[in-house]
């Protein structure tokens, strides 16, 4: 069995990432709270994973040899929903009814309602531990699948993250790749001012992880880091992706209030227009 067609074309991946951001904006909509910021900051590496790096099959979400994706920062579910819908894990129509009564797409990822969701995350700090257990289970079975787990830079204040960091290192979970969305903002302001998690790279290195630090919006750097991670043996891998919260939505970029903010009709129209436009040739 093989995965669906994946691409190494960076322009194509950028185009998909824009589409995913547009989907995110449309899922948030007008006058409703929605996790715009963290969903958009993760959009580029989530695109790289789903459309280039990962082995997966939307026609068979339970394929045993798939790579696993866990969104430990579960509040950014919209970015994963957009990627899954784009692949056809469920009809795109579902994105029109997010977080409403009876919706497949819940406020946080729910494996029982949504095809392609691996675990229920959203109580922060737990997803990385679940990812570790998956990596350990895959290793017992001798499968070469990898586990990708996205954690937030606010989330790593949770003590359990560091329990998981120790466990991954102790058990040398080389099939585990974590991506830390270093957007620098927690709900109410800059992490470095309100509750610092710096220096992040030294912390992970001290816990025994292989650490890379990249521009989380540079598709080439993202793909390079994911490939580099494959070559590292005997330890779990951390990719610190330096990002901008709400990247791609200019009025919201880098603003903490759009962590779970509300767009006006005007802002919404502007965001849709900018994201729908063809980008200038790069």
């Amino acid at each position, binding site marked *: 069995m093989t995965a669906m067609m994946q691409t190494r074309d960076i322009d194509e991946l950028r185009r998909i990432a824009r589409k995913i951001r547009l989907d995110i904006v449309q899922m948030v909509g007008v006058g409703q709270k929605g996790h715009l910021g963290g969903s958009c900051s993760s959009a580029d590496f989530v695109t790289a994973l789903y459309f280039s790096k990962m082995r997966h099959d939307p026609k068979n979400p339970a394929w045993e040899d798939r790579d696993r994706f866990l969104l430990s920062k579960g509040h950014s579910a919209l970015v994963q929903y957009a990627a899954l819908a784009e692949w056809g894990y469920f009809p795109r129509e579902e994105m029109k009814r997010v977080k409403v009564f009876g919706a497949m797409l819940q406020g946080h990822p729910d494996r029982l309602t949504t095809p392609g969701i691996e*675990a229920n995350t959203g*109580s922060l700090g737990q997803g990385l531990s679940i990812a570790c*257990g*998956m990596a350990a289970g895959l290793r*017992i*079975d001798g499968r070469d699948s990898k586990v990708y787990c996205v954690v937030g830079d606010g989330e790593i204040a949770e003590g359990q993250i560091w*329990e*998981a960091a120790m466990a991954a290192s102790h058990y040398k979970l080389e099939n585990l790749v974590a991506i830390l969305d270093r957007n620098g903002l927690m709900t109410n302001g800059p992490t470095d001012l309100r509750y610092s998690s710096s220096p992040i790279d030294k912390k992970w290195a001290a816990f025994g992880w292989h650490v890379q630090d990249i521009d989380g919006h540079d598709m080439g750097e993202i793909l390079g880091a994911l490939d580099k991670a494959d070559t590292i043996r005997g330890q779990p891998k951390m990719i610190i992706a330096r990002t901008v919260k709400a990247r791609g939505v200019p009025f919201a970029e880098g603003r903490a209030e759009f962590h779970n903010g509300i767009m006006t009709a005007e802002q919404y129209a502007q965001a849709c227009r900018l994201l729908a436009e063809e980008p200038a040739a790069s």
Partner: protein
Amino acid sequence: MTLQNPREIYGRTLVELGAENPNIVVLEGDLGKSTMTCYFEQAFPNRFFEMGIAEANMTSFAGGLSLTGKIPFTNSFAVFAAGRAYDQIRQGVCLAKLNVKIVGSSAGLSDFGDGSTHQTVEDLALMRAIPNLTVLVPCDGTETRKMTRAIAAFQGPVYMRLTRSDMPAIFPENEEFVIGKPYLMRDGGDVVAFACGQMVSKALEAADMAAAKGISVRVVNVSSLKPVDEPALRAFARGMRGIVTAEEHSIMGGLSCLINYVFRGSGLRTECVAIMDRFGQSAGSQDELLAEYGLTPRHICAAAEKSLSK
């Protein structure tokens, strides 16, 4: 009566299961020589995970293992397995209906020396309140073995509460353990005593005491607190004139709450033997604590007498 150690039997049963099923994996929070997962570690080192003193991570990690088809058993003292990891059990395991078996050892007052920090008076309340979670308490070593095997075969999250102490062997060898089923341990005609864990054998002793006073006590082992066959519980009370509950747990949220709920409006007087909203404390023996907290056969007998008074 033969004494059995449920921890010892649990540890040996895990090894049996491990030999039968390669998907059985065991996680331990640095208490393997007490929870007796040390036997599994010796037998199947590649399927044993020392998780250190980090119960939260152990629980979520087990969830991840279950998502690859493994049947993980997490182990610690009940106070940590259920309490420290409450949010992981709720959010990661039960919301997602993951096939994780959470085994809380040294529950109730059975870790008498270590005192209140290590004694669980509220784990059943916490665990019963979580949707999707099956909550079980074996009454002796025999039932521990049967229950351990049953939960390995069962698909879904389970909390199993084990005691540290030796317990009299009372569960019939030839009886199958079925999740949800209450078991008649002794028949009687005046009062029905619903008990769980080691309070089942205390209730049997109490039934002897009551018989000497002319009161016939039926003893029912409610080893499944959730789910439980409610019609079966009601059938056990049919023709009775009083109800007693007995548990080594707080009066809040455990067996007494279950029984009071099932028999709401029945008109039967229910007397509860439980820990009255207090923490535990250190003592030189568990019996000292059971006496202090009112959890002895004498207390159950008195409750039976009281349940008959108008």
